[in-house]
């Protein structure tokens, strides 16, 4: 599982919901690749977990499996416990602000607090159901979600991160049943994380396939060259961890602390300073063999030209989520659900209204690697869209580059007296859960209480924006942007300030004076010539 995405807030619920739609990764998703990165346990590893007597026994629960893992992998659990995949926390090294999925408010399911039972379907652990979760218990680390080689290991919302141990109807009342996981089989299938392992959470973040990122969705399980030149199944066939190289379970490359620019030659894999998850780690920052293109790397991120669009498939990505439409019921007073023409969620009485798009042209921003997030309890100004996450940087900052971003816009509730975004209790089937009772007051009351925040009892909805850099789905080079897509009057970078771009910029008055000079000269010589012709005829 990779760190970049762990960063995605609220993944948890999301996956769960997504799985209702997309289903879990299947064994077929794990077709062995041709490269050693892909599901290679049986191919390149010196250990076949299917032959370990410690694993050849029935397991009742996930933690039991973890205990078996720890017999040999003595340091694994405490390693995981130091990572964002476990803590859901991230500290901004510059400001000291503590972010992470545990603390921030996002534009999708908003906040994990009071919704842990659902959200923790995507936590790499077992049993985080409320604020009392003990983060030091090693057996509660979930090894299987990242290392399952069967594609059958599935965590549903409502179980605080546990897989299904008993046959259960899911979703409740749907008449569909989920079979209990065969933990022995899963434990014996252990492998390095495949695209499907990471994707089981990161592709479905935000509650649906592709909803959250736009540059990550289930199409990356079997991508072609067009979609991702590195992951191309018939080509390089990279797994996530080829770039997100991992040491002591710490997955490199996190959106919380990104490297927005990297200078110099290509680095060495495994060198902690090399930031292996950046393009430049392998390509260097002068990769074009063409000076004019190479000089662009001083100001432009690789991604800007080489990811000309994101969500380059029919899955698409969500561009807005309007929570203010939630609790609007159908004519019969019951929950109403609607899909858009491409079969993607468009409305749900539980959650509000969504808008989706495929082949999205990014919005471009200066970015220096540091984003600022709204965390629970931050004051807001409701007179303008609240920036839940905003990328830092500018033209004057030498570390900044122009990056493609996905901007997700939405509306969510805030406390109109205390001027904070509210925490709402959404998931669950208890007396105050929004998705069960359709009552905002109750849901906010419970959520704010769980978060330890004051709630005035008055709420309204405010516009919100979430800006995330785009970095996956790198296109083949022939699909990169052409010069003119930026070097023109109304090009992709028309709103980028602080730099001079030939063909986009220029002095208006110089143009006026210059063309006037040329025109007057032309008129002058034409008149001069005409007089000569007329006079010579008279003379003649």
């Amino acid at each position, binding site marked *: 599982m990779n760190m970049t995405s762990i960063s995605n807030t609220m993944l948890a619920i999301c996956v769960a919901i997504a799985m209702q739609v997309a289903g879990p990764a299947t064994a077929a998703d794990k077709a062995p690749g041709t490269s050693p990165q892909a599901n290679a346990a049986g191919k390149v590893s010196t250990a076949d977990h299917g032959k370990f007597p410690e694993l050849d026994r029935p397991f009742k629960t996930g933690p039991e499996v973890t205990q078996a893992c720890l017999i040999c992998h003595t340091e694994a659990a405490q390693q995981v416990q130091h990572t964002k995949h476990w803590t859901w926390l991230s500290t901004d090294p510059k400001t000291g602000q503590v972010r992470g999925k545990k603390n921030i408010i996002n534009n999708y399911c908003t906040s994990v607090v009071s919704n842990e039972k659902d959200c923790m379907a995507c936590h790499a652990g077992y049993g985080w159901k409320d604020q009392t979760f003990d983060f030091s218990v090693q057996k509660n680390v979930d090894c299987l979600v990242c290392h399952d080689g069967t594609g059958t290991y599935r965590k549903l919302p409502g179980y605080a991160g546990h897989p299904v141990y008993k046959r259960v109807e899911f979703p409740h009342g749907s008449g569909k049943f989920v079979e209990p996981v065969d933990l022995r089989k899963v434990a014996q299938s252990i492998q390095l994380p495949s695209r499907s392992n990471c994707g089981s959470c990161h592709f479905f973040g935000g509650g649906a396939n592709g909803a959250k990122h736009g540059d990550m969705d289930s199409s990356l399980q079997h991508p072609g060259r067009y979609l991702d030149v590195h992951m191309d199944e018939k080509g390089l066939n990279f797994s996530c961890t080829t770039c997100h190289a991992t040491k002591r379970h710490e997955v490199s490359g996190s959106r919380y602390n990104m490297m927005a620019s990297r200078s110099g030659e290509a680095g060495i894999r495994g060198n902690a300073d090399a930031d292996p998850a950046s393009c430049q780690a392998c390509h260097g920052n002068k990769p074009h063999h063409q000076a004019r293109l190479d000089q662009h790397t001083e100001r432009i991120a690789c991604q800007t030209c080489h990811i000309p669009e994101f969500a380059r498939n029919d899955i698409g990505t969500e561009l807005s989520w309007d929570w203010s439409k939630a609790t609007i019921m159908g004519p019969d007073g019951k929950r109403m659900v609607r899909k858009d023409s491409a079969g993607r969620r468009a409305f749900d009485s539980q959650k509000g209204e969504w808008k989706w798009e495929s082949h999205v042209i990014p919005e471009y921003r200066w970015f220096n690697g540091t984003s600022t997030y709204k965390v629970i309890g931050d004051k807001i100004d409701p007179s303008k869209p609240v920036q839940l996450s905003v990328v830092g940087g500018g033209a004057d900052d030498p570390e900044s580059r122009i990056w493609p971003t996905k901007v997700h816009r939405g509306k969510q509730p805030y406390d109109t007296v205390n001027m904070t975004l509210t925490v709402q209790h959404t998931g669950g089937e208890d007396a105050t859960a929004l998705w069960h009772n359709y009552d905002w007051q109750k849901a906010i009351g419970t959520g704010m209480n769980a978060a330890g925040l004051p709630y005035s009892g008055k709420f309204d909805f405010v516009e919100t924006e979430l800006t995330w850099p785009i970095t996956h789905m790198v296109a083949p080079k022939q699909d990169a942007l*052409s010069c003119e897509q930026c070097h023109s009057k109304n090009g992709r970078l028309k709103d980028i300030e602080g730099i*001079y771009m*030939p063909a986009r910029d*220029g002095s208006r008055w110089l*143009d006026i004076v210059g063309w006037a000079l040329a025109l007057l000269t032309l008129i002058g*010589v034409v008149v001069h010539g005409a007089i000569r012709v007329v006079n010579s005829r008279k003379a003649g």
Partner: protein
Amino acid sequence: MTVEKIYVFKKFERFWHWSQALLIIFMLLTGFEVHGSYHLFGFADAVGMHTVAAWTLVGLWVFAIFWHFTTGEWKQYIPTSDKVVAMMKFYSVGIFKGAPHPYRPTTLKKHNPLQRLAYLGVLLFIGPLLWFTGWFYLFFGDWKAWGVDGLLSLEWIAFFHTAGAFMMLAFLIAHIYLTTTGHTPTSHIKAMITGWEEVD
């Protein structure tokens, strides 16, 4: 009045003139596309061809400078105040009345006083302005390595490069027209092609 022919433009000079003329026209054409004035070749091709033309012109100039100094022809551009007023009177009045040209070129002094001034202006002002700004424009990526990134801004380099281009365009228009002001409307052009100028 008898028509006399004198040899004013040597072979290399004619080659230099015409290849330079083509390059400058081509660079105006591509340059203003890079500037964003219109769409013709496409930005990428315009930049590429503009650059190739620039290097070609640099090469041509290396030869031209060498030629001018080894032959002493550079003296043709030394400005003179002699007959400047007469020339201006001729262009503004006399030419309409069929008055005789006040300047008679010779092999040693082939440019009239206004030409000397105009060409010197091109050679000493418009040219260097374009060369200087063009060079830094071309090597924008090396500013940091050269330590000039704090001194220069691309915006101003582009501004003066474009300003130079406008001046060159105005010069070109006037220059082409003035070729018709010889003994006959085509005698100057013929001279630039054959080397032989018809004079009164």
